């Protein structure tokens, strides 16, 4: 039998067939040609290898540890901080430069009045303990790329910012390592901001609300309020169906969702019930009306900043071409000069509450 097979092989009678079968194995992939990039764990964020457990400390020791830990807080107390504040020089902003954003906390909504008497609703965003944790130069920064987007030729670097100081006892060793190497108090929130190399900052640089000026436009990224599984009326604003006139059991339902015939399927992107909210959304082109430098609070002209009150959001210089800022504090407001600023900064059209009442004058007089 084997000899027969060998002879057949020798003649290569089935060579064509064999090759064909090999080709058939490599069938083209069905479905999406360009799948979205997989989520990749950030390089600068080490994965935790162990979990926190009950350490069984005696109360005295617990107190002692928190006493020691609270001593090493703040930038100035850090003995090992590599930051040399003199090195932060105001650079010049050039076309195409991109500076860092800020991490804020949405703290509420309340009205302000403009000089013309108009009442506007503003959202308050507080900037809490923002510090630069790390700078990754363009050579080392390799973000996940979406193939459908066009990539700029200039490669940007990345700044990792942290906000809201936390107790170092509550975090894992790996997480603490990020801040220990940077000489920064451990932070609750971390966020990366892509910047051009001329806007790089040293780790440990504090950032404050004066990073922006009143009158500038910003984009705010936040996670929208989680509303859970919702029907089409709430999720997409459908009209529903009548309450009466013979309608039964379909008062809040979507009705028809597609045509029959040969298609016989639901078209992709059809608006249907489902999970609503809890998504990242960006509100673009929001004007800053007022800044409080003492409490580091920014008032923006919007009542629809994504997210609930007391959640974090991220502020960037706007990307809208008509509202782009051409003279920002670059790379940031010098942290040594913060005391020189007045406590409240307003745009020209906002009526500060300390000013006298608004009186409308007739046009001839003015």
């Amino acid at each position, binding site marked *: 039998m084997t000899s027969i097979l060998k002879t057949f092989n020798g003649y290569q009678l089935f060579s064509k067939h064999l090759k064909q079968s090999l080709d058939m194995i490599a069938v083209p992939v069905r479905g999406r040609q360009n799948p979205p990039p997989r989520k990749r764990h950030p390089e600068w964020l080490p994965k935790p290898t162990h979990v926190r457990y009950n350490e*069984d*400390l*005696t109360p*005295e*020791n617990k107190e*002692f*540890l928190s006493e*020691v830990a609270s001593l090493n807080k703040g930038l100035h107390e850090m003995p090992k901080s590599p930051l040399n504040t003199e090195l932060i020089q105001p650079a010049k902003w050039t076309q195409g430069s991109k500076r860092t954003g800020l991490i804020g906390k949405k703290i509420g909504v309340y009205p302000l009045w403009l000089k013309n008497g108009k009442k506007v609703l503003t959202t308050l965003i507080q900037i809490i303990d923002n510090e630069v944790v790390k700078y990754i130069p363009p050579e080392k920064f390799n973000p996940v790329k979406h193939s459908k987007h066009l990539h700029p030729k200039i490669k940007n670097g990345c700044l990792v910012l942290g906000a809201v100081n936390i107790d170092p006892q509550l975090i894992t060793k790996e997480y603490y390592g990020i801040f220990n190497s940077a000489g920064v108090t451990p932070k609750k929130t971390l966020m990366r901001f892509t910047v051009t190399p001329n806007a790089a900052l040293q780790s440990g640089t504090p950032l404050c609300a004066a990073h922006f000026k009143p009158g500038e436009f910003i984009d705010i990224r936040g996670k929208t309020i989680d509303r859970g599984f919702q029907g089409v009326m709430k999720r997409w604003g459908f009209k529903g169906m009548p309450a009466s006139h013979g309608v039964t059991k379909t008062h809040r339902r979507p009705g028809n969702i597609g045509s029959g015939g040969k298609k016989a399927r639901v078209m992709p992107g059809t608006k249907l019930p489902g999970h609503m909210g809890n998504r990242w959304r960006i509100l673009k082109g929001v004007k800053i009306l007022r800044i409080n430098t003492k409490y580091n609070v920014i008032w923006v002209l919007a009542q629809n900043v994504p997210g609930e009150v007391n959640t974090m959001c991220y502020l960037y210089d706007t990307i809208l071409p008509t509202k782009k800022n051409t003279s920002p504090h670059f790379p940031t407001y010098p942290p040594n000069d913060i005391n020189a600023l007045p406590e409240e900064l307003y745009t020209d059209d906002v009526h500060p509450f300390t000013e006298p009442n608004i009186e409308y004058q007739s046009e001839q007089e003015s």
Partner: protein
Amino acid sequence: MNQAKVEKLVSRLRYNVGPKPRKLKNVDGSEGRLRKIKKTLTAVIKYERIELNYARADETRGYVERLISEALRHGPEHVETMELANFWINEKQLVHKLFKVLVPRYQNYTTSFTKLHNAPCIYPGYAYKRAILELRGNIYPTVEQSNPHQHNLLHNILLDAARKEYRMEKYKEIAANMNF
């Protein structure tokens, strides 16, 4: 933004109150819900420690705390407080316990009046979250267990030594400063 009601003045409860009340499924609606809570509240005041469903325990906890804080605030002479106690406590002899036993007990408390513990689920059976609700200062042995050998653990011994050293250094520093 709604205005807070100002007619009534209440004391702050010393535990974290949830933003929304639980509905506690009942055919009679909110009236039936209160009737359910009344039963549990009476039992808590009577037995001082009970084991029950977590949601109901957590919901009742607020009412117990509020009733005791009202009794502390106004005393038995206050008509409205007496009316409240009458409404909430099903067994009338327990009204006396509220004003004569519990109020003196909690006079100088700086913590909450009740305590809520997670309890293990009963196996086999439905895995409902269960809880133990108790009044503080009761006569029963404590539910929490403490490790008797805590002080002998190695890291505690080391930390004790470190603490002593740290304190000594601090005292030395202070002494040095005093001399100048």
